[in-house]
């Protein structure tokens, strides 16, 4: 990545860029891992790796997807290390309660609890679309899926989420 003068990006500029993107990256890692401490570790590790590999980022506007790819890779690494085979969703919700219940809005709290229960294959593309603003094609490229498969997962994810939240799903297609 080059700065305005055409040289390598300096530390201050890199830090400013990372700081601006960090909140969404932590949120993304949190919804991926459902664990705030792990999410913060993953993003911290991501920043270190990004700094070491900063020359591979040719265009500053591509920083967000570039960092998100590193987050996903780091999360996969942490998963391999910890061997998290089974997950008790209720325990996870209890553990992350302060973060999930930060809002006084009970409806939001219930929606967050429902998101915790959504299978990862649906939760991840949904978070990428709604939180990160990714298009279907961008999600497909990132997850190495076809666009049709992404649309199917998004449809099923939203449908399941609405049902979990007690929304009226009588008009939802099968």
């Amino acid at each position, binding site marked *: 990545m080059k700065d305005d003068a055409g040289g390598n990006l300096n530390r201050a500029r890199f830090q400013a860029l990372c700081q601006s993107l960090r909140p969404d990256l932590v949120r993304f890692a949190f919804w991926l891992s459902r664990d705030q401490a792990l999410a913060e570790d993953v993003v911290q590790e991501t920043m270190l790796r990004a700094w070491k590999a900063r020359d591979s980022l040719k265009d500053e506007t591509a920083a967000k997807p570039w960092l998100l790819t590193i987050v996903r890779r780091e999360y996969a690494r942490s998963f391999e290390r910890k061997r998290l085979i089974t997950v008790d969703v209720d325990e996870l919700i209890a553990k992350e309660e*302060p973060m999930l219940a930060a809002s006084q809005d009970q409806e939001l709290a219930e929606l*967050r609890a429902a998101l915790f229960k959504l299978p990862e294959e649906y939760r991840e593309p949904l978070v990428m679309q709604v939180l990160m603003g990714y298009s279907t094609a961008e999600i497909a490229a990132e997850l190495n899926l076809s666009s049709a498969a992404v649309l199917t997962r998004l449809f099923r994810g939203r449908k399941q989420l609405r049902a979990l939240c007690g929304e009226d799903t009588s008009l939802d297609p099968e």
Partner: protein
Amino acid sequence: MIDHAQYRRAVLADPHDADAELARHRESCEECSAYTERLLGFEEKLERALRVTPRAAAAAPGTVVTPLRRPRRQALGRRWFAMAASVLVGLVIAGGLWLAAPHASLAADVVAHMAGEPQAWTRTDVPVPSPELDFVLRNTRMRLRPDAGIVTYAQSCLFRGHRVPHLVVQSDMGPVTVMVLVHESVSKPTPFDEEGYRGVILPVAGHGSLAVLAKDQSGDLASVEKVAAQVQAAIEWTG
């Protein structure tokens, strides 16, 4: 021209899709317009829900932390009671429905499943990436050799209570759907022609059956059977 189900399926996948055909349908259909309004309301809540605040910020002075759930011990007791009651009620309802309802044929259920995934029927030569196909086949104890044809769609679908691979293979007659139904046995090849789809359900010794179908305007039954034989020959069972 898209119908209500196609429209709602598309907006459930992407409520902000700016596709012109979707917009035309929304403008001409009061019910789908109201449906979209409600969905966009949910979407707005979803976006706010995803924007969680890190713990440090949540604990800042003036921030009220509302408990999300009851204390765990109490919640566990209630949950067990609720689960037991739900199972009992579910069994009674399911039993009643099973006795009361006419039992749909396997072919009818396969055809009904097609309505839910219209995007699978795209005519294309772009194969699904290998990791995606591997993911769908991961619990099936089968492999699909490349001579099955180009697989352009692969999903793991809920069908009659089981997760089954739903694949689309491109052939001379266009896209052909293959559903691997290891939990459904048939005694002999069963051709069918219903609701605009033509296909055959083939018995697979020791592994249930294989449903292979195409849209009826794509070709005759013999063409579908030819593709079915080709796919069946390309499956390697590993267990």
